[in-house]
């Protein structure tokens, strides 16, 4: 008979869960140049990212974090904190959840949503840095990504549709007309649908 299989997670993820890197010690964030926090305890995920910035080069020199969440949430913030060091603020701002998941050696489907908060918290920290340093003009809104190429529907459109009441893929299609041509975006749209339902309504 087979022995116990490994966890549903990759070895890399397991390593970052067992030995998380760059945890913010204590409560003091004054020594950092930017602080960002996303998620909430009711949903089961909350992440805080703090950064130190070389102000001349606009390069992240240190990144620490705290996470309330499951193994993949802990590991994804841990690996993110390693990935951003040495990157410029602009490079770091464009790290996607997909990159984080890939660095972790992949995530089980139902765990993707656990890793999307880390990069959001990082972007919040970067925007926080710009605000603190009188560079409000550099504060960027969340990236917009086209999900349905045929109908030009973005992730923001999906988020809006969820906020307006869409709860199923069918309802999402009714509101946005997404996926009504080639249908190739269905999987990605469904992941986003679930993610926004979770973030906004805890369901």
């Amino acid at each position, binding site marked *: 008979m087979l022995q116990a299989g490994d966890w549903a997670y990759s070895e890399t993820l397991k390593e970052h869960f067992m030995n998380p890197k760059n945890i913010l010690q204590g409560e003091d*964030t004054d020594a950092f140049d930017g602080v960002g926090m*996303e998620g909430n*305890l*009711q949903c089961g995920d909350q992440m805080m990212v703090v950064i130190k910035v070389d102000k001349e080069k606009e390069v992240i020199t240190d990144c620490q974090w*705290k*996470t*309330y969440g499951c*193994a993949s949430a802990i590991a994804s913030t841990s690996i993110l904190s390693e990935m951003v060091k040495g990157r410029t603020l602009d490079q770091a701002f464009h790290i996607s959840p997909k990159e984080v998941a890939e660095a972790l050696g992949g995530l089980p489907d139902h765990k993707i949503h656990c890793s999307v908060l880390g990069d959001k918290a990082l972007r919040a920290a970067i925007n926080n840095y710009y*605000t603190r340093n009188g560079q409000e003009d550099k504060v960027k809104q969340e990236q917009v990504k086209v999900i349905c190429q045929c109908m030009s529907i973005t992730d923001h459109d999906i988020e809006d549709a969820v906020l307006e009441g869409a709860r199923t893929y069918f309802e999402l299609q009714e509101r946005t007309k997404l996926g009504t041509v080639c249908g190739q975006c269905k999987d990605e749209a469904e992941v986003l649908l679930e993610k926004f339902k979770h973030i906004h309504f805890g369901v």
Partner: protein
Amino acid sequence: MKVYFDNNATTPLHPDVKKEMIAAMEMFGNPSSMHSYGREARANVENARRQVADFIGATEKEIVFVGSGSEANNTVLSLFVCGSSQCIPGSKMRSSIITTKIEHPCVLETSECLAHRGVRVKYLDVDQYGKIDLDQLAGMLGDDVGLVSIMMANNEIGTLQDIETIAEMVHASGALMHTDAVQAVGKVPVDVRSLGVDFLTISAHKIYGPKGIGALFVKKGVPYCPLIRGGHQELGRRAGTENTLGILGLAKAVEMRALEMPGEEDRLLELKNILRNGIENSIDDIHFNGHPTDSLASTLNVSFSGVEGEAILLYLDLEGIAVSTGSACASGSLDPSHVLLATGVDAELAHGSIRFSMGRQTTRQEVDYVLNVLPKIIERIRNMSTAYIKGGLHAASR
């Protein structure tokens, strides 16, 4: 050290059950066959039926062997929706059922499905300890209600319901009473006559028997309709060649339970108190879930504020300790335990809940080991949790 504290999920096979089943593997006859092979199997199946019946105070004909506790529960609930004029219960049953918000998903999802097929389903609330409110039940009962299904012991928090009183009320209103006793049978005394139930669900693998076998008690004379048709097995109440190996395993499991139950509850209760007090004395910001006294001696459910359950579960797994959690992340859904939410526990505490379920093999050394490991793990997770930064929250950018 390896510690298995997840006995409400499933139990290890009792060594005597294993022996019985190994011997039974030689017996391959179909109990329906008339030759000697078949007669051997039939004799053993019927002997097993008598043992199971005796264990819960039923008669042999009142025991239907089924594939699982879930199948038994599905069978009972499905009595309602048969539209066939051939089917006596389907056409005569009243059209509403009552259940609770803390049932196993096999009852809740079947109830939901029935609701889509025209059955009116009413859900009882529970209090902070997981007990139903008898006044609310009284208010729901009426001449429209055909069946009430309430679990005897809750799998997540261990809370026991007063089935005897409930069954009396249900019968007074003219409805039938079902209890899912999967977590109760073999842990607390269960006698179908004193409970006064019409249907009762049993599962073997929760009591050191094999998986894939359960039994449904169907009181003589109550309406019944099979879920699985197409065979005369189980007196036409459950088609399919008997799982002889499983049936013999179940019978041996209840036989061993009858021998081992006396004294076990006191022993487990003592261990649970040591575990409970130990956690309380070594970890701050916790919340015990379930009834403080009216609960399974083997089950302790506790929520740790500011930590997520899957992380606790996996760190414990790395130390050789097996538990379960009510966290959403461990379930594959985005919702934490419906049982804990029904008791009014805050979602954050539901995400941070851990169920310790002990069993016949649990020792004091195991409890001590858990008490040694757990506080360090909670401290470690809290050290990295956003829930434990107070001053830091103000600096956050949102």
